[in-house]
């Protein structure tokens, strides 16, 4: 047997063993009953999408309808309730209630009560609760759409929009529910279940790492290096800048990358007496595309990776070739649309070239060297940490701590560099998305998409990629992606052959590449436009659309083709 075959057999055995060990719904309920002991009623509750229903109230009622025992369902939807022996009379009723579901009653007949009387356990069949549309449903839906609108029109800070959204849900759940229980969405404790702390800590750790790296001057030096090796020829310069930006964006967040690349790029453009946009636009689209290659490259990938348990290596293997192909297509695209600007550029004067060189020096070479070593260590842990169950959030925190200990910068300054408003944004966003999940809106959307795609995997992949792209172009891609995660999970479970996270990769490609389609599609676009506007090179929404939308079409098409080829 060849090593490859042996590997395949071992993988199959491992998968077989995993599924053999993995208990079924019915077995889980039985296990729960055995763990409790005594006359026990157990069962499993699921929603219409076959997802476990947690925190449902399960009460056992005596003949006089008085409760004799009660419990709540666990995270896997199971429950086990011990019925006191002295209450085991002629008949019992199991009453199940859960906000946003129709309540359910199950009458235990004489035989079933007899079983309990002998100290045995009785397991109810797996039951799918029916959804109920409440006032809370509409409030959660309007709140989510309102939050998206507030973020899209940029009248509120993103964090404030998410905070207002979370507050609206609590007002409905507490004040509204005091008037009419139909207003209830979830309580505070339940809302905390929806916060993905792995995402929060990963972003926080990466923020500290970035704060150390960005002060070293490496970005400015790299941009100047691009200018030097291209000898000021814009057609070549733009390709080198795109590669630098894409690689940087794969490991750091796109907004920081563009905040650091834009000022030096503007200087290079002005030295060459050209409008900066023919250099900035390719950079920003490359940044949005390059981020897709890794787990930490974009906030949407961080969300997807954490939710679906996709490793850093898996992102790298499955998406990097597609990213490279999309970048190659973009390089051709920019050469065509900006050819006149590149042709009309002139050589920089020696004085301006000298000033460029001065502005592009590495300011902290020792810190940069240390950051490089720590970065390498982090990369190794990101790549192979999965085998020892090391989650990326811990790797990011270890890297941040190592940098702080080794470089010993001003710790207060570094902690200040953590953008707490972003972290609050994510926490509130998780709550708002949790709200629409709680009331069942996401379930309805999942059902709808499920009906459209049926069991056609190719159609599902294309639909998720393009829906992700168009929605990310129109509204902020982070809340959209957060809301789509349970939908994609539902489709992945339902469509045969979709087990390998391929639909999550489709969401990653669509959400990030779609950001290129419009000015508001990605935060990196907004900050780049903001800087350019401050130096007298504003870009309108329509102008950005004219250049960005075709770039989006090109990259999403290439991305889709890659996904179809890969899976």
């Amino acid at each position: 047997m060849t090593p490859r075959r042996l590997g395949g057999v071992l993988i199959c055995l491992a998968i077989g063993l995993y599924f053999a060990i993995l208990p079924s719904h019915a077995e889980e309920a039985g296990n729960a009953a055995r763990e409790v002991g005594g006359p026990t009623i157990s069962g499993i509750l699921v929603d219409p999408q076959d997802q476990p229903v947690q925190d449902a109230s399960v009460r056992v009622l005596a003949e006089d309808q008085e409760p004799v025992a009660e419990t709540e369902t666990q995270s896997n939807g199971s429950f086990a309730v011990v019925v006191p022996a002295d209450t085991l009379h002629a008949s019992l009723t199991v009453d199940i209630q859960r906000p946003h579901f129709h309540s359910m009653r199950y009458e235990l007949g004489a035989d079933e009560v007899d079983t309990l009387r002998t100290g045995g356990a009785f397991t109810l069949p797996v039951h799918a609760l029916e959804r109920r549309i409440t006032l809370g449903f509409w409030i959660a839906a309007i709140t989510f759409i309102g939050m998206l609108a507030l973020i899209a029109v940029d009248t509120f800070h993103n964090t404030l929009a998410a905070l207002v959204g979370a507050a609206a849900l609590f007002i409905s759940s507490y004040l509204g529910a005091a008037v009419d229980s139909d207003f209830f969405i979830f309580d505070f404790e339940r809302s905390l279940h929806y916060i993905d702390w792995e995402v929060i800590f990963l972003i926080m750790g990466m923020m500290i790492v970035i704060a150390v790296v960005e002060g070293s001057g490496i970005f400015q030096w790299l941009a100047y290096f691009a200018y030097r090796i291209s000898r000021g020829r814009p057609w070549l310069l733009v390709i080198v800048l795109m590669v630098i930006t894409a690689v940087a964006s794969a490991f750091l967040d796109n907004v920081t990358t563009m905040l650091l690349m834009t000022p030096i790029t503007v200087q290079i453009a002005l030295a060459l007496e050209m409008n900066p946009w023919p250099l900035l636009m390719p950079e920003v689209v490359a940044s949005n595309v390059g981020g897709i290659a890794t787990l930490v490259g974009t906030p949407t990938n961080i969300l997807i990776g954490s939710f679906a348990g996709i490793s850093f290596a898996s992102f790298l293997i499955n998406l990097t070739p597609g990213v490279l192909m999309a970048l190659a297509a973009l390089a051709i695209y920019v050469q065509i649309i900006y050819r006149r600007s590149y042709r009309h550029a002139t050589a920089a004067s020696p004085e301006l070239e000298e000033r460029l060189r001065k502005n592009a020096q590495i300011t902290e070479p020792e810190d940069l060297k240390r950051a490089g070593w720590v970065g390498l260590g982090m990369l190794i842990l990101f790549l192979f940490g999965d085998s020892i169950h090391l989650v990326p959030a811990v790797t990011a925190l270890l890297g941040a701590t190592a940098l702080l200990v080794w470089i010993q910068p001003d710790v207060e300054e570094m902690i200040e560099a953590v953008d707490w408003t972003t972290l609050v944004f994510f926490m509130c966003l998780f709550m708002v998305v949790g709200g629409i999940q709680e009331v069942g809106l996401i379930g309805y959307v999942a059902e709808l998409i499920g009906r459209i795609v049926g069991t056609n995997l190719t159609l599902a992949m294309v639909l998720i990629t393009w829906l992700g792209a168009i929605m990310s172009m129109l509204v902020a891609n982070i809340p959209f992606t957060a809301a789509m995660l349970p939908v994609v999970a539902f489709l992945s479970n339902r469509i045969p052959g979709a087990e390998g996270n391929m639909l999550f990769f489709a969401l990653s490609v669509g959400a990030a590449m779609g950001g290129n389609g419009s000015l508001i599609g990605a935060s990196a676009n907004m900050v780049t436009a903001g800087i350019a506007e401050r130096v007298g090179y504003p870009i309108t929404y329509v102008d950005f659309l004219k250049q960005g939308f075709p770039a989006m079409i090109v990259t999403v098409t290439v991305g889709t083709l890659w996904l179809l080829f890969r899976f």
Partner: protein
Amino acid sequence: MENEGGAESSSERRERQQIVCAARGGKGSRPAVNRAIRLAKERDADLTFLFIADTEFLSHALVGPPSVIREQLRDMGEFIMATLQAKAAEAGVMADYAVCEGEVGEQIREYVQENDVDVLVMGQATEEDDASRFDSGTVSNFAAVLEHGEEVEVVTVGQDDVLME
């Protein structure tokens, strides 16, 4: 606030008019820059180009404005002002430049106050610009407020003046 150049003493400087040109450096600034250079030449006045690094736009982005980014924006502002300085030198006018950080209207007003500026030359916002960056709404309103409050001659140069330049 940062000033470059300016070898003359302050008493020598006060004998001559102080012209300040608030500019961003883009195509839209060219008429204002040209007008400021011409005025400095005609009146034999001192000319300073003023750049305001306004980081307010970062407040809507999901990232804090760390000091490094502010430093980068200042470097960029200095570079742009140096290109204007070179342009003035070509026209035979030795100009200085200054880079300030903060809200545009507020910083211009502060600079005018602190430096006894006699003439302020500004471009008029184009349609694509965010005119609301001035407290009083538009450049012309801002100019009127400044002329009244700070006793400074404000010259606003519109896009139509491009043809005249």
